């Protein structure tokens, strides 16, 4: 069921692309369970202009269990591990339902970036510390710098 549904999702994505997800394609043609995506940094945020590569692994019992998604491009965000790219988002863990798809999950990740995240359950301690200390200017500057260094200019 997983691959059949994935084919559907990819067809739908090609017919009806998302403004957040610029690329969504299998890493290789014969394996649908490893996908790569390019996510656009949300406009009017410190991530604007950045293009983030993500790797998506589809579990065998998809869609009953969520896909595992992590950033390949370093993403400076309180709920994203800067080194491993792990994303702390309940949609990817407990609150997943089969009604979501890969594209809508990626859009949720983009929304997480735009919403600024939740510094109380951080994967990026340094940034979360800045945010919790109320240094919004410093945090935004750091994010902007990291986006420019890692996610722009290629």
């Amino acid at each position, binding site marked *: 069921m997983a691959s059949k549904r994935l084919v559907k999702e990819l067809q*739908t994505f090609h017919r009806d*692309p998302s403004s957040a997800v610029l690329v969504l394609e299998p890493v290789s043609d014969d394996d649908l369970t490893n996908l790569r995506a390019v996510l656009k940094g949300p406009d009017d945020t410190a991530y604007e202009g950045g293009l983030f590569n993500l790797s998506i692994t589809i579990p065998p*019992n998809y869609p009953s269990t969520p896909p595992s998604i992590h950033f390949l491009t370093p993403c400076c965000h309180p*709920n994203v591990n800067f080194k491993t790219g792990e994303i702390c988002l309940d949609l990817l863990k407990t609150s997943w339902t089969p009604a979501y798809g890969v594209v809508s999950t990626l859009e949720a990740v983009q*929304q997480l970036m735009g*919403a600024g995240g939740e510094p109380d*359950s951080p994967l990026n301690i340094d940034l979360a510390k800045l945010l919790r200390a109320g240094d919004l200017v410093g945090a935004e500057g750091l994010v902007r710098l990291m986006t420019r260094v890692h996610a722009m200019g290629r």
Partner: protein
Amino acid sequence: MASLPPRQASQTQRTNPDQPSNAPQQPQSASPPVRTRSEDSQTLFLNKPEEEVAASEAIQDAERPQESQKQGADDDPNEKNCWICFSDSSEDTPDTSPWRSPCPCALVAHEACLLDWVADLEAPNNRRRNDYLSAPKIECPQCKTEIKLARPQNLVVDAVRGIERLGGQLVTPGAVSILVGTLYHSSMAWGVQSIYAVFGSEDGYRILHPLVQNALRAPIEFTNTMTSRQISQEILRATLVHLQHWRLYIGIPLIAPVLVLSRTTLADAMLPVLPIVFFVTQNATSPETIDFGTWPPSASMAFAMVPYLRSAYNYYYRQVWAPKERQWLKAIQPRLNQDAGNAEGGNGEQGAAGGEQDMGNLGPREDDDNVFEVRIDGNIWEDWEDTDDEDAAAAQQAIDAAIAQAAQQPHGQEPLGDNANAEGAEQPAQNPDPQQPQQPQPQQPAAPAGGERRLSFSPTAIAETVLGALMFPAIAGVSGELLKFWLPRSWTTPVFNTPYTFLGRRRIGRGLLQEKWGRSLVGGCLFVVLKDAVMLYVRWKMAEMHRKRRVVDWNGPRRGRA
């Protein structure tokens, strides 16, 4: 974990916010994509509202004729789209499972898809929920209506699953109670041993024999001829027999924990309260124990006094000896921050050598060794002293037990702890420090405090403290026996005045030392005092010797003086 409102995710799929969104997938296929241009001149595909769709349908058909057929199918209002496998009803084959609509909203799905999803939710090893013991909630992701499944019922399956669930919930309490039971019985065994150590075999057995009797009592046998009334009477009687000696069952296992606890500062606040508790709860039937005026005091009385004795001794030690001890300790510290006065020779040399790396290394190494030794010594002392405290507590527990028995046997055998020694408990902490200084080390002037802390908190020290505390009753008992050899026989031999009374054999003692418990008590106290005295002497002597150290000049021929 960051969370987003669940629906938001699917709403953002539509770049047009006006688009009504019900099921996340449904609208996607229902409205055809339209090519448009956005402000930033990026080419985007937007879903237009229905009216615009109609207007642009002609263009779209012209542009993408190959898709128009498919669009037509999607527009069919009878079209169903499974929200789990995303396939629609146009793809149905005879093998496809029937469509189900389990909730009031627009989400429909194949029955097989729903059942797969439910099976995954219920899989015990794949639970993403926290409360894995209760059944997971199966609800529509859109409208949160509970999705109901008609399941065949089977009493046996339900019963077994219920038992399994109950068993899962009982694992933790079961493990805890086994652990507690183990601890209780080991404490009980240890408490029995310490009672024998302090009271000797005869008095100890008198204290403990209810335990033995109860342990060996035959279980109640229920026969068919017994009425329920008889049964309940039997049970009541057995319970009462145990309850009668509740002090034994509570007090004896408490000896060990209280001994260990009393090594901490907690004991300072707690121990003086215990005698009061003891006197308040004791049976009115043992008037002897409240008799303050007689000599020798009853065992209960003697042991009840131990905590106060300990406090008094500790106070005396702190007031009189602790400052001197600290001074002596300081004298053997390297004179990092102190006057050169006391360490003229050796320390000066070491200080000069400080530049050399060899010396530097040597210092720390020696330090470590010393610390280790010190720890052992200091801990043992600490333990002993602590044990005194513990003994006091234990003694009180024992006293309780003894008092309970006293009703039957007029000579309440009071369990003796060498509680008097408990007073030393606070001193040991200070003792270890002095030993460290033996070898002038790069230690900081605050070494005494640091040393104490190290002693108290290193795992080895804690283990040694506990062991020492637990050993104290035996030490007190042995010291008490040693008294026999040093004291006149008449002091330590009981005199039987009126051999038998109706309550049993009664001894009229002239002194504490005629009873085993009394010797243990006094021996324990003497042990602590003696130990403190020796430690103080060693410290004083060390300080003095430290002052008299000299570096020996080289007497042989000199090299390198070319």
